[in-house]
């Protein structure tokens, strides 16, 4: 897919008076997950660009919010903005992320965002 004829101000036009990611609202279709769902982070190849942290791969957490719709970083980083996805805030127990995490802090949690492609039902 070549975008040599791409309008380079397309994003500025789309986001003007709306903001980003608000300008992608309504474009991702129905959300696959809902608040409270248990999800596992997929281990997709991570060459070239991603914002899905390696330390979350394969870990299981709980969806705490559907935060916004936006192109996934892996798409947007090359200006591919025509397939927005739902983004989810997922909460993990720190103990589920770090094997050596001390029992004293068993209630500690970590919350971070993922685009839908990184999640599967746990």
């Amino acid at each position: 897919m070549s975008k040599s004829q791409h309008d380079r101000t397309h994003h500025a036009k789309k986001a003007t008076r709306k903001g980003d990611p608000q300008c992608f609202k309504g474009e991702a279709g129905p959300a696959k997950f809902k608040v409270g769902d248990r999800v596992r982070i997929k281990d997709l190849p991570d060459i070239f660009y991603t914002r899905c942290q390696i330390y979350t791969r394969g870990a299981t957490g709980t969806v705490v919010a559907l935060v916004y719709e936006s192109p996934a970083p892996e798409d947007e980083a090359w200006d591919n903005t025509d397939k927005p996805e739902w983004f989810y805030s997922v909460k993990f127990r720190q103990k589920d992320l770090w094997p050596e995490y001390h029992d004293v802090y068993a209630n500690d949690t970590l919350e971070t965002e993922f685009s839908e492609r990184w999640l599967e039902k746990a």
Partner: protein
Amino acid sequence: MSLLSTREDAMRFIRAIGYLQPAVHKPQHAPYPDEIDHTLFRAYTRSVHDIGGEPDVPIRWEEKEEEQWEANTFATCECLAWRGVWNAEERRRRQNVEIGLTSYLGLPYYGRWLLSAALVLVDKQYVTLTELVNKIDEVKKRHEQKSAR
């Protein structure tokens, strides 16, 4: 700048490169394929800004005021986005990942912004590298004259 000091500068630069090797304490000169297992391949090809959880020593935290060139760099990069040269995610890809591990860890935060702003202009043919290099040279000479006075 005299010819001699230019040579000394070049040699000093070449020696400094040796210190920039990431601290995997083994030789890293174009290994044969069977010397790279999956773990090492992934370590080399991952997005280098994905640093959470790596073993490391504590670093010193310091309060620091933003310098003028840093604010200018930020404004320049925002204008490039406004004019459609890149979006924020492409900027991050360039300044945090494609810059490579050694530079990611070794350069100041806004130094990486500034370098990637210059590179995106060259990559997308808004300026040629020849024009950019000549301009930097011209500004450098002007600055040297000014500071000599």
